[in-house]
């Protein structure tokens, strides 16, 4: 970093940006100008720091002070107290929930202690819009090394030896894929980066592109060198405007520095990258569908083989890798395969990024070595379940994955263990659920997603999932019968076996895994017409217990449909025919006078 003595890094990730991080930047700049510190202090908007729960985050370098939940109005104090007088603003420091002690360096926080950042190495450390900062952290060194010291074969060998597997869900060995694409003879080949990130509830890839776009550009160029391609394409969701903007800027800078274009670093190697926008179809994350979408067609998958490595974009050999897979590459080249393969488990090397969300205290973006247990992720890093509730389940793999119970909490996370447990690694969505979540409803939620996103090309997926959804709907409405559980299982297995692409082949997983792990909940729904967690509204009834009601009228004033009647200081009454079961009264009543049955 250049001449400035002080750097104020503000999180510009989507979460923090939604909570006014732009405003904070403006205020900080204003107060820095006022204090005549313009020459000494620089304000930089970075990518997601990971600790989104406590956002917006502002980090002050060089002393590494980590401020949480900053508001624009705090800017004055940060400048006047911290920058001018050297006294960090105590009230903005993170407070450890166990010891109640304030921690100013992120390294001391439980949230960061067990993490290891390879793919996210630069996120939250550099200004993603500055190529200088990327270069100052060994950026483009790996590309230089490959072009000048290693042959394509040697580079591929390094990637193979590292044991890196695809982070987009499938877990295919990356080096092997590169080798296959290299060995496919053609006059033109392509490198494609899959930034479609369809898993609803996940934001890993966008955060890498928003926080460290150059790492992906560098890796794509290395891949191009290895497989013999001079053209790269990034397929990115149009819903990610910030990521698109950052990537566009990064591409421009890379061209200006001669790191893309013709004769890169004077080695005679040419490589160019273009952006292709997705248009909101989950199935386009599947590589064959993605390729059709890039060709301007409907994003419908086609049968494999041929694999894209042999015949992909415009019929030419195409190497498709995920954003996070690419982000690992420069580090592997710089530090060596041996270093990388030391990390992780026997068959899953390195780290994995997860978007940790749901009923957990520390929602955020985390990166842990493979082999870390779910318990460590949920309790040590995630800080446990929100509001002191009981853990029920953790879902990985998005709509293709499964729900695991507390019996799996000590399972070390890797591709094979998650698969064996009935879920999958997926791209990194990790949603934690508590005692209030109904697993039948969760299965239904994922199926709704699949239904909407099925491309409709093959009937098992198009019609089968619809039938699955109908059965689940019936169960949650209280009309289910015991035979329905068997029907769900049978149909699920047929859909899995006969669908054309990965979407259909995995769409029943949430149903099968919830039946396997939470059969008692299904049984309660079908045998007793009861939803144990009280989520299935059709099975619910809110009632006021006369003896406990003080007539405070709070519920009456909060009911959105006027279903509650009663005189002040007299017991109130809920008209069941009007009640829409929103639960507002239940939450508001201070006397526990409203019961759920």
């Amino acid at each position, binding site marked *: 970093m250049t001449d400035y003595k002080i750097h104020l890094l503000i999180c510009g*990730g*989507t*979460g923090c940006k*939604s*909570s006014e991080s732009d405003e904070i930047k403006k205020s900080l700049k204003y107060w820095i100008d006022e204090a005549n510190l313009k020459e000494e202090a620089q304000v930089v908007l970075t990518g997601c720091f990971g600790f*989104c*729960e406590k*956002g917006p985050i502002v980090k002050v370098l060089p002393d590494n002070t980590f401020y949480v939940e900053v508001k624009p109005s705090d800017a004055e104090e940060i400048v006047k107290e911290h920058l001018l007088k050297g006294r960090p603003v105590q009230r903005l420091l993170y407070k450890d929930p166990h010891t109640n002690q304030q921690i100013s360096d992120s390294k001391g926080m439980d949230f960061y202690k067990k993490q290891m950042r390879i793919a996210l190495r630069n996120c939250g450390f550099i200004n993603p819009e500055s190529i200088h900062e990327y270069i100052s952290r060994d950026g483009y060194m790996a590309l230089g090394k490959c072009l000048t010291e290693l042959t394509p074969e040697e580079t591929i060998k390094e990637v193979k030896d590292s044991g890196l597997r695809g982070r987009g869900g499938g877990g295919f060995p990356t080096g092997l894929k590169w080798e296959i694409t290299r060995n496919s003879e053609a006059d033109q080949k392509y490198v494609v980066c899959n930034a479609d990130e*369809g*898993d*609803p*509830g*996940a*934001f890993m890839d*966008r*955060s890498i592109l928003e926080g460290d776009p150059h790492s992906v550009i560098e890796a794509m160029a290395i891949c191009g060198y290895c497989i013999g391609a001079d053209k790269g394409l990034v397929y990115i969701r*149009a*819903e*990610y405007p910030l990521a698109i903007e950052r990537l566009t800027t990064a591409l421009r800078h890379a061209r200006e520095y001669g790191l893309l274009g013709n004769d890169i670093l004077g080695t005679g190697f040419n490589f160019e990258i273009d952006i*292709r*926008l*997705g*248009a*909101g*179809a*989950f199935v386009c994350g599947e590589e064959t569908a993605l390729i059709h*979408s890039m*060709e*301007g*067609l*409907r*994003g419908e998958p086609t049968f494999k083989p041929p694999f894209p490595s042999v015949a992909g974009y415009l019929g030419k050999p195409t190497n498709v890798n995920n954003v996070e897979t690419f982000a690992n590459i420069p580090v592997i080249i710089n530090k060596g395969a041996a270093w990388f393969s030391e990390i992780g488990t026997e068959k899953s090397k390195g780290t994995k990024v997860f*978007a940790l*969300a*749901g*009923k957990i205290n520390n*929602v*955020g973006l985390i990166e842990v070595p493979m082999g870390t247990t779910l318990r460590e992720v949920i309790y040590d890093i995630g800080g446990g379940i929100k509001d002191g509730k009981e853990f029920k389940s953790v*879902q990985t793999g*998005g709509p293709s994955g499964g729900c695991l119970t507390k019996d799996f909490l000590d399972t070390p996370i890797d591709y094979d263990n998650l698969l064996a447990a009935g879920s999958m690694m997926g791209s990194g*969505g990790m*949603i934690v*659920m508590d005692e209030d*979540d109904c697993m039948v409803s*969760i299965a239904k*939620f*994922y199926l709704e*997603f699949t239904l*909407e996103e099925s*491309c409709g090309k093959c009937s098992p997926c198009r019609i089968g999932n619809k039938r699955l959804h109908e059965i689940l709907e019936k169960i949650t409405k209280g009309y289910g019968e015991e035979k329905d559980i068997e029907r769900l299982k049978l149909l699920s297995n047929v859909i899995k076996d006969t669908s054309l692409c990965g979407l259909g082949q995995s769409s029943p997983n949430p149903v099968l895994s919830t039946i396997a792990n939470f059969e008692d909940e299904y049984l309660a729904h079908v045998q007793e017409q009861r939803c144990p967690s009280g989520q299935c509204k059709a099975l619910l009834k809110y009632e006021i217990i006369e003896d406990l009601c003080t007539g405070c009228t709070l519920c009456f004033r*909060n009911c*959105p449909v006027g279903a509650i009647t009663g005189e002040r200081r007299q017991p109130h009454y809920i008209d069941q025919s009007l009640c*829409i079961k*929103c*639960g*507002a009264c239940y939450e508001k009543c201070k006397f526990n006078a409203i019961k759920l049955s």
Partner: protein
Amino acid sequence: MPKIKLAENTIQIIKDICSEFNHSEGELINVLHKVQHTLGYLPAEVQEVIARELKTSVAKVYGVVTFYSFFTMVPKGEFPISICMGTACYVRGAEQVLSEFKRQLKVEVGESTGDGKFSLNCLRCVGACGLAPVVMVGEKVFGRVSPTQVKQIIAEYREGCATEPAKSA
């Protein structure tokens, strides 16, 4: 759907966009993105012009427009409301928020209010799961929304005292 006659300059805008992409059929999706960004939506008449310009069939253009959820054939409201229905938002109560919006606006998902002020849509994970459940009005993000806040959010825009008008595309 009633026929709309496109104004000459609208047709010109579409033609210019197609030229920018060399009238290449393979660029169809990029063309659609740009046209929707400029015009706000892609009614049948617009698709006809695009098909002619790219020398492809209207059926193909229609097939692509209807395949992708990002493309819309009906205009969005002045203030497009999007409820995040990603998993993280769902488990934190997005469904209740959605049904409250439906009730207050008296529209279903994908529809606009009669006065054209609001349209209601769902989307999947906007990347602010820490703020779940999340609602977007235009570009503005509202976090940790509870059903009881819905009325107030709508009122804020209905009365026109919103900080800045949301963009329509």
